[in-house]
């Protein structure tokens, strides 16, 4: 009697335990399914981002020449970076110059072009194509083209200027003009950002303009109080992407320096023209490449990469934090 009573009392508990187990199994199955669907991303993230990041952090504390095993040196690479390497600060200054001048100009230029294309009444398709097409040109080919047309002695730009009685600048051969020349190249290929701005401008609700117009707002006020606030999330996007791109600026600087210095075909030469002229195009990623792949000093290059990551992160956080003051999301979201 006692046994059967106890058994009866235990039965519901066992059922509850079974249910809990079943729920747990179902939850695990669900998690497994989620993981299964996420696995391509997890694998990609791990292989192409997580592992390189961890390895860069590890290698930054080692002497590593790519060919023999890494050797632990502690913080020596960071000490050399901050206290020994004479090229780090010029390279950082060049990169900051890009962030300060190229990024705002690119955003302004892309916005301006998008505004014009959005207002065009005829040939909209042609204008969109014309302004977007340069974005499809491979960076190396585009840079080669610009070095050719801006050649101070034989280029068509200076030839045209000389017909007007103006002696053209030395462009990529001048430390004063080399970065502005790269900015011109950057503005020419701004198609991607322009298209994003164009989509955002077209997407601004018409009734907002109508209301503003009824309130007596002219074109400038409509731009400042309707267009800009409405597309401010896109401006934030363009600024953040622009800053990150500027900090990673490499291909165009590498090609322009190599071609303008006249050394491109000289495979036998040990001479180095990265940063030509006078280190004016020696951007931080170019110096990182020089250390890692020309000097085979990969431990130091990894330390440079870690510092670049930290600085880029700080910049983006600063911009995003500051953006709360000027970015407006439709529906009032922040």
């Amino acid at each position, binding site marked *: 009697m006692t046994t059967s009573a106890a058994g009866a009392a235990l039965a519901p508990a066992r059922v509850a335990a079974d249910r809990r187990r079943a729920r747990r199994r179902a939850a695990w199955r669900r998690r497994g399914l989620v993981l299964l669907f996420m696995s391509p991303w997890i694998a990609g993230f791990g292989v192409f981002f997580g592992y390189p990041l961890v390895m860069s952090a590890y290698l930054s504390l080692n002497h590593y020449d790519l060919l023999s095993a890494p050797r632990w040196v502690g913080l020596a690479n960071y000490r050399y970076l901050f206290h020994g390497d004479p090229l780090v600060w010029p390279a950082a200054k060049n990169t900051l110059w890009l962030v300060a001048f190229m990024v705002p100009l690119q955003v302004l230029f892309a916005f301006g072009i998008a505004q014009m294309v959005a207002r065009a009444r005829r040939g909209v398709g042609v204008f969109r194509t014309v302004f977007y097409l340069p974005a499809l040109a491979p960076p190396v080919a585009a840079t080669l083209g610009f070095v050719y047309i801006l050649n*101070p002695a*034989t280029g068509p730009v200076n030839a045209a200027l000389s017909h007007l009685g103006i002696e053209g600048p030395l462009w990529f051969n001048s430390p004063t003009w080399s970065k502005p020349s790269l900015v011109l190249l950057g503005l020419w290929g701004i198609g991607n950002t322009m298209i994003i701005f164009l989509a955002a401008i077209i997407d601004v609700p018409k009734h907002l303009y109508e209301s503003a117009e009824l309130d007596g707002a002219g074109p400038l006020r409509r731009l400042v109080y309707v267009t800009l606030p409405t597309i401010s999330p896109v401006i934030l996007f363009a600024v953040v992407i622009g800053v990150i791109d500027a900090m990673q600026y490499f291909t165009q600087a590498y090609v322009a320096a190599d071609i303008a210095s006249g050394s491109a075909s000289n495979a036998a030469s*040990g001479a*180095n023209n990265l940063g030509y002229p*006078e280190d004016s195009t020696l951007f931080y990623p170019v110096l990182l490449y020089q250390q890692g792949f020309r000097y085979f000093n990969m431990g130091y290059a990894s330390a440079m990469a870690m510092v670049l990551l930290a600085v880029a992160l700080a910049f983006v956080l600063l911009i995003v934090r500051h953006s709360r003051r000027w970015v407006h999301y439709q529906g009032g979201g922040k």
Partner: protein
Amino acid sequence: MRRVATFVASVAVLALAATTASAGATVRPAGSTGTTTITIWTGFTGRELGIIKGVISQFEKTHPTIAVKTVGGISDDKIVAAIRSGTAPDVTQSFTADNTGSFCSTGAWIDLGPYMKKDHLSASMFPTASAYYTQFKGTRCALPMLADVYGLYYNKALFAKAGIARPPRTIAELTADAKKLTQRDASGKITVIGFNPFLAWYENAESHFAPMWGARWTNAEGRSTLNTPQWRAFLTWQKQLVDWYGYDNLVRFNASAGDEFTANNAFERGKVAMILDGEWRVAFIKAEHPELKYGTAPLPTASAKLFGSGYTTGNIIGIPKTAPHKAEAWQLVKYLATSTKAEATLSNELRNVPTTKAALHSKLIKPDRQFATFLTIFANPYTTTTPITAAGAAYQELFASWTTKWQAGKEKNLAAGLAAVDKQIDDQLANQTGGGVP
């Protein structure tokens, strides 16, 4: 448990299959075809690559069990990447000896000492400079395969027009002739330049000028010695000549000079009266501008004792540590670097300087008058090369970074600037060897 056992068994079978396949890929079964195919990567391209292939086909005739696949246009970056990923070929040839230090010190290229000993070869068969730049701290991981030697090329027609009878022998003569030979248009722009002193233009590297003043890169302890009278004299002269031309004028002239390794080369087109260049230009002129009337001579020097000397460096050839067929690779390396016939053929056709003493004195070498100048410079006891370091050419590049500012007039204090570069180079070398900042 059964699943685990099945999985382990499957992995084991796959691993075994992979190992077998891998082994099959690297070791050709004896007697299957009777030949082993090896691959050589070389920096040569175009016309010069064709010449290399011709000599390698001679090797294949004398070594019927070895077939060679030749790949041209390879840089050191690609060689290093391939060694790291285990996809390096059997033999690699590099255009620059600057990376000998890292190849030897890391074991990326194997030590050829045991192979040489087995075949009774000694490094004394190579001229001193070539023997030096193919080893690092006693490890011989490379052999020299033709040397480059630098001298002066001059345009005879422009010399005759200016009334100059012979090429300059002193720095003062070089300066005077450079000014006399220079032609400008009405606006003052340079149309023909006497001698272009602009560093980083064509072959105007600091290392190529150094022997003219007897300037040395390091002292006995391996410390950088740029702040010395010889380097200061060179840079003072160089800046004065740059200023005489006008920095902007030189930049504009350089931008219009044409690509160095094409038929647009400014010297070949008669736009440059005197130029510092390598011995290979003889073959380029013959192929591209045979009508050019020119001569060759040793570079002018600051002292009579140094006249006749110059700068030399050269191609290096070795076997990557991951080479699949090392024994066959050694046969090819030995042939290209030590066979008198191979060296002579390459020298005659490429117009590079042979790098064995036997080949240098061989009757197979048929130098024309222009090329003979470089053989004489190579044999001069004061002819020097650049130091081999574990940091490659980093010390030269740090110096070049400073000299570009110097010639632009951005650096005013020569001695202080050179002292600062000395420190930067010593710091870089210390960091490169893993010692951190000293």
